[in-house]
C-alpha cells in the first residue's frame, strides 16, 4: 500500500482533534461574575480561567445558586444572564509542510479568528442553575456552530447528624464537564490549544463524547470533603438534542452511544489554610456504534478507569497547583473488528497527564505539562507506512509537553503564549510519516488573545 500517510490522514487527525477538543472547551463565565458580583479570580485561580479555586468548585457543585437570579423577588439590579467570548491568534509550526510539500499544519503564521461563543449561565432558582454555551468555531476551512458545554443542576442541602450533605441532580452533555477538578479530560491542561496544532491519534472515550451525549445523574458532597456521583449517558438525540445542536450524527465520524452508559466519580478533598489536596477516581463504560450514521447492530465497548490527584496552594500573591491524572481504557472492538476496522478484537489505551501552574497575583500565570498516551498497537487504526509501503509504526503512542504563559490584561482579556512540543508521535520519534518527518516537526508556538464579556 502506498501513500497511506497522506493529507487526508493528517486532515482526519486534525478533524479528530477539533471534534473533541474545541467543543469541550469552556471559558470563564462573565454572567456568573455578574450574578455573584465576584471577579473572575474568585472562582478561577489567578483570574485565569478555567482553573477553579475552592470557592469556584463549591459554586459549581452548589448548582450555581449563589447571587442573584432573573426570578428573584428582589429585582434590584438583576443581571442579564448572558456572556460572549472570542478568541483569535497565530500559530507557527516547526515544519508546516511534509517532504512532498503537502501541508500538515495549515495557515501557518497567519492571523486567524478561532471562535465566537455565546453563553447562558445563571441561577434559575434558589436550588437550580444552568450554564450552556453555543460556539461558532473556525473549522479550517469554514465556520460551524455547535453546542458547547451544557450543565443543568438542581441541589439541596441536608444536615444529617450535624454534617452538611449536598445532594444534586445533574444533566450535561460531556462526561467530566460536570466535574470541578482540572484533572479530568474536559478541564485538564492544556486548557486551550490552537485548533491548528496537532495531537496524537488516540484518546480515551471518556473524553471524546463532548457535545454528542446527554446525561442524567446524581451526586452527593459530604462536609465538602467526600464526593460521589453516578450518571448515565446516552446519545444526545430526542430530549437531549439541544445539547448536541449543530452536530450531525448522520454525517458519520461521531460517537453515537448505545443506550444508557454508566459513569461514576468519587473523590476526597481537604482544605487546610491556603492548602488543598484531592485524590479521586472516575470511570465509564461506553458502548459506541462504529458508524454514527447507522446506529444499529453490534457496538464497540470502551471501559475507562481513571485516577487523579491535585495539590493547590492559594497564597495572597503566589498560587501553585500541581495536577496528575491517569486513565486506563479497555477496548473491545466487537463491531469494528468484525468490519475490519480494527486489527485486533481487544486492546487498551493509557493516558497520563501531569501538569503544574504558578500564578503571580492576578496578572501572570505559568503552566507546564507532560502528556503521554500509549496503548495496544493496531494496524487498522494507527498504521503509518513509507511511500514504498514499508511499515513504520502501528502504535498510538504519543508523548509531548506544553509550556504556556498567560497574561491577564484585565479580567476580561487574556493573552496566551503556548509552546507545544512532541517527543514521540504515532509511536516514533523520527520518520513519523514514512517520509522523514520528525515528531518535533509537529511542534507549534501559539500566540492568542481571548476576551470574555
Amino acid at each position, binding site marked *: 500500500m502506498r501513500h497511506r500517510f497522506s493529507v487526508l490522514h493528517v486532515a482526519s487527525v486534525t478533524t479528530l482533534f477539533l471534534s473533541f477538543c474545541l467543543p469541550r472547551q469552556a471559558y470563564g463565565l462573565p454572567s456568573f*461574575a*455578574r*450574578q*455573584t*458580583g*465576584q*471577579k473572575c479570580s*474568585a472562582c478561577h485561580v489567578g*483570574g485565569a480561567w478555567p482553573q477553579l479555586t475552592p*470557592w469556584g468548585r*463549591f*459554586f459549581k457543585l*452548589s448548582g450555581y*445558586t*449563589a*447571587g*442573584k437570579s432573573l426570578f*428573584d423577588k*428582589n429585582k434590584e*439590579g438583576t443581571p442579564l444572564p448572558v456572556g460572549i467570548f472570542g478568541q483569535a491568534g497565530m500559530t507557527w509550526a516547526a515544519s508546516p509542510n511534509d517532504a512532498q510539500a503537502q501541508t500538515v499544519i495549515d495557515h501557518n503564521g497567519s492571523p486567524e479568528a478561532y471562535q465566537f461563543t455565546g453563553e447562558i449561565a445563571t441561577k434559575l432558582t434558589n436550588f437550580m442553575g444552568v450554564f450552556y454555551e453555543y460556539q461558532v468555531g473556525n473549522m479550517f476551512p469554514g465556520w460551524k456552530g455547535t453546542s458547547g458545554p451544557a450543565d443543568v443542576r438542581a441541589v439541596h*442541602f441536608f*444536615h444529617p447528624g*450535624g*454534617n*452538611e450533605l449536598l445532594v444534586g441532580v445533574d444533566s450535561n452533555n460531556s462526561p467530566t464537564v460536570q466535574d470541578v477538578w482540572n484533572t479530568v479530560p474536559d478541564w485538564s491542561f492544556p486548557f486551550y490549544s490552537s485548533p491548528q496544532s496537532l495531537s496524537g491519534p488516540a484518546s480515551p472515550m471518556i473524553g471524546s463524547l463532548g457535545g454528542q451525549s446527554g446525561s442524567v445523574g446524581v451526586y452527593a458532597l*459530604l*462536609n*465538602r*470533603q*467526600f464526593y*460521589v456521583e*453516578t450518571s448515565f449517558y446516552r446519545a444526545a438525540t430526542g430530549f437531549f438534542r439541544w445539547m448536541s445542536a449543530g452536530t450531525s450524527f448522520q454525517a458519520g465520524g461521531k460517537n453515537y452511544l448505545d443506550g444508557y452508559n*454508566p459513569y*461514576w466519580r*468519587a473523590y*476526597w478533598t481537604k482544605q*487546610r*489554610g*491556603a492548602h488543598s489536596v484531592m485524590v479521586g*477516581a472516575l*470511570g465509564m*463504560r461506553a458502548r459506541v456504534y462504529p458508524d454514527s450514521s447507522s446506529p444499529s447492530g453490534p457496538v464497540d465497548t470502551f*471501559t475507562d*478507569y481513571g485516577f487523579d490527584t491535585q495539590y493547590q496552594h492559594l*497564597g*495572597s*500573591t503566589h498560587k501553585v497547583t500541581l495536577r496528575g491524572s491517569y486513565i*486506563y481504557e*479497555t477496548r*473491545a472492538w466487537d463491531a469494528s473488528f468484525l468490519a475490519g476496522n480494527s486489527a485486533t478484537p481487544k486492546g*487498551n489505551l493509557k493516558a497520563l497527564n501531569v501538569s503544574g501552574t504558578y500564578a503571580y*497575583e*492576578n*496578572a501572570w500565570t505559568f503552566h507546564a505539562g507532560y502528556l503521554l498516551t500509549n496503548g495496544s498497537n493496531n494496524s487498522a487504526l494507527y498504521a503509518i507506512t513509507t511511500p514504498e509501503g514499508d511499515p513504520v509504526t502501528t502504535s498510538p503512542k504519543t508523548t509531548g509537553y506544553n509550556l504556556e504563559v498567560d497574561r491577564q*490584561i*484585565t*479580567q*476580561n*482579556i487574556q493573552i496566551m503564549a503556548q509552546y507545544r512540543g512532541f517527543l514521540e508521535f504515532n509511536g516514533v520519534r523520527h520518520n513519523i510519516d514514512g517520509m522523514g518527518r520528525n515528531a518535533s516537526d509537529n511542534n507549534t508556538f501559539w500566540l492568542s488573545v481571548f476576551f470574555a*464579556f
Partner: protein
Amino acid sequence: MKDLNWFRFAPVLATAALLIVPSARAEQGKRGAPAIVTRYCSGCHGVDGNSQLSYIPRLAGLNAGYIERKLAGFRTAASPPVDEALSRVVRIGSASTDAGFTHAATVHMVGVARAVSAEDRTAAADWYASQTPARGKSGKPKLIEEGKSLFANGLQSQGLLACQSCHGLEAQGSEAAPRLAGQNASYVVNQLALFRATDRQPSPTMTAVAQHLERDQARALAAYLQSR
C-alpha cells in the same frame, strides 16, 4: 487488565466513603445556617466564620451591626467588578496590585454586597455574630509581646492611640470597631497596609493610625491579635 464489573465497584466506593466520613465530621456541617451563608459567604469565610485562609477575615463573633454597616459601605464604595473591568478595556491597564490582595478582596466584597438582598445581608450578619470564635493561633512570643504592648498602650511618641480604646480591652470589638481577637494575621497586616495606602476606607481614625504604624509594628500587632 480484566474487565471489572464496575457496577459493583461504584457502590462499594460510595459505601466506603460514607463509612469513613464520620471520622471527618466537618466544621461545615452547621444546621440552621441561612442559605446565603451556606451557598455564598462560606466559600471564603467558612460556615462558622472561622476562615482558615490567613488573608480572609474571620467573622465569627463580630458585632452584627458592624457587619451590616460594613456591607452597606461595600455597596456604595466603588463600581462593581464587571463595570470596573469594562472601564479597564477603555484604558488598558494592568491588574490592580496597588494594595495587594486586600484590595482585590475588597473589590470582591463590593460585588457580593451588591449581589445579595437586604434580608440576606442581615441574615448573614446575624449568623456570623452568633458564631463562636475559634481559638487564636500561637506565634513568636517576642512578636506577640510587642504587639500586646502596642495594643494596650499605643505609641505615644508617634501619637498612636491605644487600639484597645476602640476595639476593647479583650479586642472583642463593638458595633463601631470590629472584633480583632483571633483575627487572621495576614488579613490584619493587609488591612493596615490598605488604610495606609488608600483613602477608600471610610475610617479617618484608622487611616491616621496606619500612617504612624511601621510595617514591623503592624506585624507585631497582627501576631498578638491572631494569638488571642
